[in-house]
């Protein structure tokens, strides 16, 4: 009994780390652009497709495929960022929703058009199970947890010490003041967006070996999984998002065990509503951005 609970918590942390890497990108984008990005899951999908393409068509090893997936997504993000996302800065929320929905439709269905709609198998990665402290995990999952930690620490350092990181924090707090003191808001917005999209792609490539199936519409589920996390974590709050992702991962795992897998996808939004009733600004105040 006790062992089961511990094991399910471990399972939760494993899925939580995946959510964390995707969500952290989305929350940073929100912080700077103030836009709910309904296309965020599509970058996850693009990253996975990039890596799948590299492995399937050029027979490249998995580590190289990771780089290709992330770089390809970043290139697309530069285009989307320049054409679309920069223009949403300061626009009303509904404009952001429609624009990102449009981007999602275009990216998703272009991939379907180019690669065909059918699902593909992702064959790279390290899928052998290993036993660690009595828990069996695929090697890939250990990699995911490690990368999750690195991303978290890296982002913390970046927003605290680097110039662009400080600019991101500044923009997320007050756009007008940044413009006054000479911070190029559009430039910061673009870089934040590229970074966020790149992180989504990274998590896509990292999870592809354990998730196996690759198809054009796979991003949508990720978007909906991520939305409650970023709200719970306090929009634009990196630390909060990590904690919220872990809470959701563990809660989902426990619900899947003790209630039923069919209720799993409601956990995110149900938890969110409970949290919001108790703390309308999320678990962690949105004031502590990044």
């Amino acid at each position: 009994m006790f062992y089961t609970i511990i094991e399910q918590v471990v399972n939760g942390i494993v899925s939580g780390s995946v959510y964390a890497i995707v969500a952290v990108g989305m929350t940073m984008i929100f912080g700077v652009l103030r836009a709910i990005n309904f296309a965020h899951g599509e970058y996850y999908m693009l990253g996975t497709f990039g890596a799948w393409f590299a492995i399937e068509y050029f027979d490249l090893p998995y580590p190289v495929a990771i780089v290709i997936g992330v770089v390809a997504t970043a290139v697309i993000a530069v285009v989307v960022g320049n054409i679309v996302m920069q223009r949403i800065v300061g626009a009303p929320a509904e404009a952001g929703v429609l624009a990102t929905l449009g981007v999602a439709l275009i990216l998703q269905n272009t991939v379907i058009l180019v690669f065909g709609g059918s699902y593909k198998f992702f064959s790279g990665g390290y899928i052998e199970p290993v036993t660690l402290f009595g828990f069996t995990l695929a090697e890939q999952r250990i990699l995911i947890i490690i990368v999750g930690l690195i991303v978290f620490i890296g982002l913390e350092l970046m927003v605290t010490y680097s110039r662009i990181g400080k600019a991101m924090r500044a923009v997320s707090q007050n756009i007008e003041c940044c413009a006054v003191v000479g911070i190029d808001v559009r430039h910061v917005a673009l870089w934040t967006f590229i970074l966020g999209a790149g992180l989504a792609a990274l998590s896509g490539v990292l999870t592809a070996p354990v998730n196996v199936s690759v198809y054009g519409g796979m991003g949508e589920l990720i978007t909906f999984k991520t939305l409650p996390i970023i709200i719970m974590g306090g929009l634009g709050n990196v630390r909060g998002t990590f904690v919220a992702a872990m809470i959701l991962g563990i809660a989902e795992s426990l619900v899947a065990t003790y209630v039923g897998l069919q209720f799993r996808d409601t956990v995110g939004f149900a938890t969110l509503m409970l949290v919001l009733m108790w703390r309308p600004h999320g678990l962690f105040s949105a004031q502590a951005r990044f």
Partner: protein
Amino acid sequence: MTEIVRDQTVTAAEHKVATGPDLRVPFGLGLAALACVAPLFLGNYPLHAIIIALIFLLPAHGLNLLLGYTGLLSLAQAAFFGIGAYASALLAVHFGTPFYVNFLAAGLITGAIALPLGIPALRLRSTSFVMCTLGFVIIGQAIAKNWISLTRGDMGLAAVPRPYFALGPASFTVSGTVGFYYLVLVIAALATLAVYLIVRSPAGRNMIAIRENETLAESVGIPTWHYKLVVFMISAIFAGLGGSLYAHYLTVVSPLTFQMYYSTTMLIIVLGGGAGTISGVIFGSLLFVGLTEALRVAPELRMIAYGFFLLALVFYFPNGFAPLIGRFWSFLERRK
């Protein structure tokens, strides 16, 4: 940009007042007459497209009251659309009640469910509120899937009867596309009238005041909280009524009725037509359905083209197409 959007809407409204009754009355009447005789020259497929547009018009009117007049962005329309569809279908399948009973019950039930949901949700601000309303859709679908004794879960409710009316011993069933077209046309016209009356009433002015500046509205004595709650409920009722029409028209209700698809569609209709205008929303629903159907000429490119259309809408027509209609009027006036 938010401010700009709203200023222009106000200007458009003032513009109407300034020019008074003009070409719009005859034009509107002409359009209504055209709608009445449409089945004479339109085939089943265009009629079907218009029926869908008119069914979507109801939830869109609801969302417009919420977003366009009160300034609250909600994605919950799909949840209320689904509740209305289930309510209506369950009544029709289990009790065989006539259409008008199902239809009105769908509205009432949806409104009754929306009220307790609105109380916690409306305490939230901006993005949190949007996500909370999105949550209603996700949880609504889970309930539809898992409350099998009531909803039959994923098997759905099939063979929902076509609308039938019973008055005393006489009864007749609306069947066929043309019959349904007139039924939906009448309901849509009544709904539009209802929205018009709400908007033109003092309550409508207070709603706009809340949209423009909630704190200020509160300071001049408008009970903003009650207003928002009531408008949220009314918008849900409209969605529920639309759901009822959907159930009787498509004859199938399944958990798929609780889909983000409907929420985003309503949002596209309202923003595409022009939030805060009634004619804009009517135009928006026709435009939306016309466009998605027109794009069927190229099935593979359809959704890509639709995505580009959304981007064009946001960036070139941030106020929707309503200002365009306004400009059309002034153009006609100048020629007069």
